[in-house]
């Protein structure tokens, strides 16, 4: 279990955060904040403080509650329990605008700037300066330029936002955050994954600006990149499973400390259940052979084969083609060359129907938009792939067999649902994902292609999914595991392929329990 890494802030505070000394009162504080959705406790008893002039890091795994916390701080959600304080005053935000007027605003992960509006129009959006409904454009533009200049941000507000670079968009967003809360002293600006769309140079520029502006505001920096968080922050909070799991001084903490606090485990090996991994001796026949598969000039040629009971991991940076390879195997993206052989039968991937018939089940990255009929029942979702084969070509449904298959899936995959008739919408993310997997098991599909199978589900459910994958391979199912989380792919796979520019960089490397490649080794190949 996690060692208690929490430290007392006040006693350990050195002179580095000067503003905090001048005003010891936190500009934003939460006390015992909890939030539960219908079946899920997203946050429990979170208390934190932010002082003027600080950059506070906030890290946690997917599903740890970061987004929920940000939403509560900015009035998008209301806490079920607990209290927010701004400069010591208890406050209650019912919408983002109220939060902004108290000085708390969020700069989104996906920048929301209207491209066909000019810079100053974006800056004033929703709070336009008008005389009886007529916009005072010149006045706004001049004021906006002066405001931006004063912040030291290098943007021309009379340009259309579509001509801005990503960095300039971000600066505009930050300016907007300052602008909304210009009447408050020391605004708190929450940056949600601000570096995710930035190149190295853009990242440096952003950090520079944050450092320049830190005497005027408090920044909260949310990111998956632990090194970045350590670089820019003074203090870092770690969320795990909706709870505050640790608080670190950036100067003395390492990314390993953060990682351990986030995941709560000493070794990755136990987490990914490596000892239970199927070994080569237990593999069956070759199940899937892909030869020279390509899609136009973007993807391929890719060749590989997977045996019964084997997990082949595929990693690569965004845009490396790993996801499109998954879609080709699913039939959702047409192959323009090469061949696929499943269980000795050659298939030309032309439509998802062909690939489903051939024996490939695809578990998409975005469960909600591509995986599930959210407002239909567990039964209708589970049987969706199997009904195609009922009574051969006859148009009838076999209600008995679909009920049986659904009950078996609920039992075997341990899907927590009130019953087969319950709507999938009400299930937790992990249980929803099990329904998607169950859909393919109900059809006795021998090859599963999974794209980020544990995306957006909580840690407990992840472990269950890992256990499930181990069980599936024991039964001889072959899995192609496409993933963005390197440790997960490495931990789960028997072999790992690295993709770059639409091709495998080399033949998949061995990842048997005693011979796991390190993350660094693979990253070297990715770039």
């Amino acid at each position, binding site marked *: 279990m996690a060692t208690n890494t929490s430290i007392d802030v006040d006693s350990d505070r050195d002179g580095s955060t000067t503003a905090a000394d001048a005003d010891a009162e936190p500009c934003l504080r939460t006390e015992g904040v909890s939030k539960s959705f219908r079946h899920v406790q997203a946050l429990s008893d979170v208390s934190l403080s932010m002082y003027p002039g600080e950059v506070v890091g906030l890290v946690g795994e997917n599903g740890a509650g970061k987004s929920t916390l940000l939403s509560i701080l900015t009035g998008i959600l209301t806490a079920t329990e607990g209290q927010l304080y701004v400069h010591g005053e208890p406050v209650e935000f019912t919408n983002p605008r109220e939060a902004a007027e108290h000085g708390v605003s969020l700069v989104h992960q996906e920048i929301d700037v209207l491209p066909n509006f000019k810079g100053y129009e974006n800056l004033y959006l929703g709070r336009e300066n008008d005389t009886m409904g007529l916009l005072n454009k010149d006045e706004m533009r001049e004021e906006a330029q002066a405001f931006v200049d004063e912040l030291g941000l290098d943007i021309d507000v009379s340009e259309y936002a579509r001509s801005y670079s990503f960095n300039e968009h971000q600066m505009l967003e930050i300016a907007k955050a300052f602008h909304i809360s210009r009447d408050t002293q020391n605004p708190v600006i929450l940056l949600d994954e601000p570096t995710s769309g930035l190149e190295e140079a853009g990242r440096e520029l952003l950090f520079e600006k944050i450092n320049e502006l830190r005497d005027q505001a408090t920044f909260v920096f949310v990111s998956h990149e632990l090194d970045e968080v350590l670089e820019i922050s003074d203090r870092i909070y770690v969320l795990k499973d909706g709870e505050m799991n640790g608080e670190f001084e950036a100067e003395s903490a390492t990314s390993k400390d953060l990682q351990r606090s986030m995941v709560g485990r000493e070794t990755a090996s136990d987490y990914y259940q490596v000892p239970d991994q199927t070994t080569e001796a237990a593999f069956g026949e070759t199940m899937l052979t892909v030869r020279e598969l390509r899609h136009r000039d973007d993807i391929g040629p890719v060749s590989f084969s997977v045996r019964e009971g084997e997990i082949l991991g595929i990693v690569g940076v965004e845009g490396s083609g790993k996801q499109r390879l998954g879609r080709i195997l699913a039939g959702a993206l047409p192959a323009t060359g090469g061949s696929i052989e499943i269980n000795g039968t050659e298939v030309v991937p032309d439509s998802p129907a062909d690939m489903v018939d051939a024996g490939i089940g695809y578990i998409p990255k975005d469960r909600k938009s*591509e995986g599930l009929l959210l407002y239909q029942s567990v039964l209708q979702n589970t049987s969706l792939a199997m009904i195609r084969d009922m009574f051969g070509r006859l148009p009838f*449904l076999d209600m008995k067999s679909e009920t049986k298959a659904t009950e078996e899936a609920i039992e075997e995959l341990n899907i927590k649902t009130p019953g087969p008739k319950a709507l999938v919408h009400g299930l937790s993310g992990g249980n929803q994902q099990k329904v998607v997997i169950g859909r393919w098991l109900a059809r006795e599909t021998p090859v599963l292609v999974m794209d980020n199978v544990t995306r957006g589900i909580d840690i407990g459910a992840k472990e269950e999914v890992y256990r499930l994958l181990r069980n599936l391979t024991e039964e001889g199912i072959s899995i192609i595991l496409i993933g963005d989380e390197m440790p997960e792919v490495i931990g789960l796979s028997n072999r790992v392929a690295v993709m770059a520019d639409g091709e495998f960089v080399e033949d998949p490397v061995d990842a048997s329990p005693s011979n796991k490649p390190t993350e660094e080794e693979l990253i070297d190949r990715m770039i």
Partner: protein
Amino acid sequence: MSGEPTTNALWRWIETQREERTRQDWIIDLGPFVMLGSLVVLFTILSGNFLTYGNLVDNVARNSALLLLVALAGTFPILQQSIDLSVAALVNLSAVLTVILVSQIGVLAIPLVLLAGMLAGFLNGFVFAKLKVPSFLVTLGTLSILNGVALIITGGSTITFRNPGIRSIATGEYIPGVPNLVFWALLIYGATVFLAFRTKFGRYCFALGENESVVELAGAKVDRYKMYPFVLSGLLCAAGGLLLALRISSASPDVGEGLLLPSIAAIVMGGTALTGGVGGPHRTILGVLVIAVLQNGMNLVAVDPFVQEIILGIVVVAAVALSIDRRKIDVVK
């Protein structure tokens, strides 16, 4: 009950229902019943003729038979989140074709008319599913085309035929006391309910209305299943037009006018949301009854027919507003 609420099974059931269902669920499930009930009470009070066998069977049931067929036709496209606006035009053309063909080839006209309806529906479906044109545009276009064809065939006037044998298919009584029109409508109603809940087609219809890419990735031939509802719609409307023409031994190119709006109202009121995926043909009959009783009642108490139009319009908009699935509001524009 209030003394020991937790031990009472009924009370517990009500509690869980309260917890699990939103107010909108209640409106959709109970709304049509409440509405039907209140209309019946209202018109019984206002008109002594309302609650008589003659009125209920000869007027309400017989008049609603055609509306039921058209509304059932429209239900499936709406279930899969598309819409067929050409239903009334299909009825027009089929009625006209029936009159022409019956006088030429007699009873053989029946399969031919039904086939023609399916063909027209297939064209709707083909353009919608294969050429990816929004269904309301396609069917708005075919609405105009079909009406045009009906006008050309008839030259714009009413045409008639004489064939008492064939006519009795619509006007006779296979089961004493039940007009054949009602008999056919109920038979077809049963068939559509079977289609919706016991066939792959029905299941995919609901699923497509919820999320098309999920269905496609699950291996269904989506394009084909997107076409079928329109073919079925063509078939049912043709049956409607056929029965209508047989009943009155004549047809004019505007004989089905005024069916489109009430049919959509009936579908939505029954509980099939325009946002797709929920409801079903089994519920459409409720909406049909509400509309039929409303129209019949307004006639009995002599509401100005122009005012009736306004009331019907209000009822449609109100029904949509109450039942629309706001979770999917982004989809409907």
